[in-house]
């Protein structure tokens, strides 16, 4: 009977230590080829109304594959090509990670090549085997679109929301 005093806490501790593994498993389940089935962008105005200024289908492709260079289990390689409603696009190959709560995916150094403030965060709104919906927000101040710089939202002229709907190929 005394063994229970030791076994019960140990069993519970072991199961509570699986958080990191769940994050890794989620990234592994994302591996494969995806098409950006929809790319939608809205302006969110201060009165609560929205103005949809991008509504694209087949806006690009995403390939998520194992990170063979630094495969510690927590990173994948994402190759992404995307073209927006103005015909401007980008094609990148960078690292993909997630947070411990598996609520966001993070594209490392997507925005620039500096050491800081260059990652793009996408909130996972929906995730199933064959569909994912990722969303991120920006703010617009004095014309340009900004990301990850200010603490006071009233400094923004307005905000924008970008939603990507991905389908597995």
């Amino acid at each position, binding site marked *: *009977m005394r063994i*229970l*005093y030791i*076994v*019960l*806490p140990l*069993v*519970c501790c072991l*199961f*509570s230590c*699986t958080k990191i593994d769940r994050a890794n498993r989620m990234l592994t389940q994302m591996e494969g080829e995806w098409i950006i089935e929809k790319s939608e962008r*809205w302006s*969110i*105005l*201060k*009165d*609560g*109304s*929205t103005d949809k200024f991008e509504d694209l289908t087949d806006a690009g492709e995403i390939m998520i594959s194992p990170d063979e260079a630094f495969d510690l289990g927590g990173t994948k390689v994402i190759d992404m090509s995307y073209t927006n409603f103005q015909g401007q696009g980008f094609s990148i190959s960078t690292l993909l*990670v*997630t*947070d*411990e*709560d598996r*609520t*966001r995916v*993070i594209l490392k150094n997507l925005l620039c090549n500096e*050491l*800081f*403030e*260059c*990652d793009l*965060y*996408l*909130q996972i709104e929906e995730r199933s085997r064959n569909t994912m919906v990722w*969303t*991120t*927000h*920006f*703010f617009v101040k004095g014309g340009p679109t*900004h*990301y*990850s*710089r*200010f*603490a*006071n*939202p*009233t400094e923004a002229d307005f*905000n924008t*929301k970008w939603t990507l709907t991905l389908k597995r190929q």
Partner: protein
Amino acid sequence: MKRLTSVLCAMLTSWSMSFTFAQEVFLPYLYADYDFATIDASEINSFYNSFNSYFENSLAVPYETLTGNEFAHPNFGIGIRFMSGMDKPLGFTSNFILSRGQKHHVNTATWVDDLQHEVDLRIRDWTFGISVGAQLKSILSAELHVTGYIRSMLLTYSTIYQDGSRSITPEYKLNGLYWSSNVELHYGPQVSLRLGGVALTARYSLPINSFLESSKYDIGFLQTETNHFPPTDFPRDMQMWVEEPIQFLEEDNSVKAGFFTGSRFVIGIEFTPFLSKK
């Protein structure tokens, strides 16, 4: 689901192993309690106060400050009680419990343009408790307990836009998930009243860590997957965080997990569905 299965397996194992020696008995039981847990709210309030003061002219509704009683919560778990000397007026009893509970508290500030910022602070407690004491006619017992708490805390800072969409991506720099944890050791008295297969318990506890003032400042609330320059810690002083980030780092001015502890009063119930034969 995996956790639930493991707990149920452990319970079934312990019941199948329950046994009685003459006047000694092991009683595995299901356990539930309500923990009137308190925290030292001064730490998180320093963030709320500094935020309200720094953005005073831009806020329509500032953050409310906490009283420290917001994190009272129920716990559920299992335990096993050993009782000896049951044929005598005065006997010996000891007890082990394992339980888990959580609570979250939401605090919202509204800016003048109706955009909102929200702090959702979630606390999860694993409780491991051992007590020893004397029992009177196997009905009433008075014990001393030592209880360990592993407390994990997740602070989610999000922006709610005017159209209702919610964001935890860092277009506003404070948005994100901040993790921290705290290991506490408590001690104190416990009494229980047993009526057949049910025992009502009450215990009061004080944190032993509170005597070690320096340990309070060891662990902050951190974002592990961000690369803001500086800093990534959740700030205690908003003005310093925005205007003097280097000084913020030098002074390690983040909210510290060691303050999220305090005295606890717990009322619980031990329920033994299949009481062992005497």
